[in-house]
């Protein structure tokens, strides 16, 4: 398998906390992976390790390179948007394009300019005069014009309004993603990305608690709407979670035979956010 990222026994300890605890995972090419977890679960630490921004224990291989020692070469193949609005405030649109065009060997200037033509940004505009949403538009245009193998997005749409958020992921999907590219994304707005994800990774207290592709997830987890008289039977099947809607109970099952569930009521694929909430129960308790 042509893995883009391979982590083996990846650990990272900060002074008083274990951010990553012997994590093992593999990300194949051509996937869009959602790395999802509560605050402080180790998402950002994992991404920083992949990007060579932090030291760690264990083994990590990104595109055949070690992010600790071969970072400069790695950055030719990897792009990231590490946070919202981290573009330097003094830079102008034209300067940003000129700079990246001359620094990055895989940057396509025409592509970048065509992305920007769809926005209200003008070449002379400085980042400090832009709204948060516009800064992200510029950053995304720069990043999408780079023909990278791996794109890492850490909360790229935090604090943006819904129009910018929708547009962000739509652009990524329509104009950027293809089978040769891999995207890793973390966000708290799970509902907005679940339809674009191919893989799902839940992380909690520095450990991967769920690692599945979306098809397998649909087979493994099921949400069943059960009327009150069947609820007791349903409970015997050890549901992950139970909630009440309009007098009916909605159960979330992990690995229960679908035929068995059909008898209880209508089966649906659970949403990622419901699955997330059920999996992370008691995190902050």
């Amino acid at each position: 398998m042509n893995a883009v990222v391979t982590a083996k026994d990846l650990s990272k300890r900060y002074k008083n906390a274990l951010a990553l605890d012997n994590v093992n995972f593999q990300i194949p090419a051509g996937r869009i992976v959602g790395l999802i977890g509560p605050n402080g679960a180790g998402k950002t630490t994992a991404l920083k390790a992949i990007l060579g921004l932090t030291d760690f224990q264990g083994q990590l291989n990104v595109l055949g390179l070690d992010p600790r020692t071969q970072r400069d070469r790695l950055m030719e193949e990897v792009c990231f948007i590490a946070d919202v609005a981290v573009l330097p405030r003094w830079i102008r649109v034209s300067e940003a394009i000129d700079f990246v065009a001359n620094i990055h060997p895989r940057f396509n200037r025409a592509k970048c300019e065509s992305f920007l033509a769809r926005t209200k940004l003008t070449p002379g505009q400085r980042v400090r005069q832009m709204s948060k949403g516009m800064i992200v538009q510029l950053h995304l245009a720069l990043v999408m014009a780079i023909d990278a193998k791996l794109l890492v997005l850490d909360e790229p749409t935090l604090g943006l309004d819904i129009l910018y958020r929708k547009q962000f992921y739509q652009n990524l999907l329509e104009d950027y993603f293809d089978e040769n590219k891999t995207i890793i994304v973390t966000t708290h707005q799970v509902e907005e990305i679940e339809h674009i994800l191919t893989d799902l990774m839940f992380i909690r207290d520095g450990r991967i608690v769920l690692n599945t592709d979306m098809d397998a997830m649909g087979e493994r987890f099921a949400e069943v709407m059960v009327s009150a008289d069947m609820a007791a039977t349903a409970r015997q099947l050890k549901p992950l979670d139970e909630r009440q809607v309009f007098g009916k109970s909605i159960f979330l099952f992990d690995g229960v035979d679908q035929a068995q569930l059909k008898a209880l009521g209508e089966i649906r694929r659970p949403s990622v956010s419901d699955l997330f909430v059920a999996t992370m129960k008691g995190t902050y308790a």
Partner: protein
Amino acid sequence: MNAKTLYWLVKREFWEHRGGFIWTPVITGIVFLVLNLMGIVGGEVFGFRHGFHFGPLESQDLVAKIHSLDARELQQVSTYLDLAMLFPSCLIAIVFAFVVFFYCLGALYDDRRDRSFLFWKSLPISDTATVLSKVIAAVLIAPIAVVVCGMLTGIIMLLIFAIALSFHGVSVWSLLVLAHPLHVVGFLVGCIPLYLLWALPTVGWLMLCSSWAKSKPFLWAVVIPVALGVIISWFNLFGSVGFESTWYWHEIAARVLFSAVPGDWLPAHSLEHLGDNPENFNRFFDLSSSYAVLTSVEIWAGVAAGIAMLVGAVWFRRWRDDS
């Protein structure tokens, strides 16, 4: 790291610091010229009101004097003209020293504070190239702007004085030819490599603090050398250590804080007797006397320390994990 990347990195520094590197010398030059003009106009108005008249009689004397100058005096005039031209450059250089000081302090800190270093770090640029580009921008390219602005200011100033005198019937244009602007430019440009070498300990120390400090790099950069000096001086009070605090203040503290002042390499005594004899000025303008400092151990020890601190700055730039 290749030359093209480095070129664009240096260019980026000038985009960001246009105000410090370009506009500060330009504005200092303009302010200097305006003050000169105000002085001349003020003198004229004062003279007119109080009946001092710089009349044709005195002018005649002056013109006669100009014509009767002998070779030695002409030589002196030319030296003084060169010095006058140099003066604005010195003024701008002092202002520039402040610019460089704060530029170095912020160079590897400001983008960590506003998190934009995450953007720079997302590009295929080595940390060595980043730090190197900032050193080149500060002590190799920015001084050229100082020289250009300083010389232009100097030449315009001489022209203003010549024009002012010609209103009084005194033509000093023939004397202006005696100035050597190219010689002065050559002297100033020739000093830049020396400046780079001499400023390295300061640049290295400030950039190390800039790269390392979690907050308040200015405080760390100043407090550490000063506190060390105070401790050494304190021990000296008891006469206990075989380590002279004066040596420390002069060779360490001053070198890591003030060596970015252009001309700091000139020993104090070389300037003391400058005025005694015009010959001394000629020696001053002779680059070889400036470059004599290269034979001292101190400068090379400073260069080595500066490079070591820059290596440290690169290391912290690579591994400082506070995002």
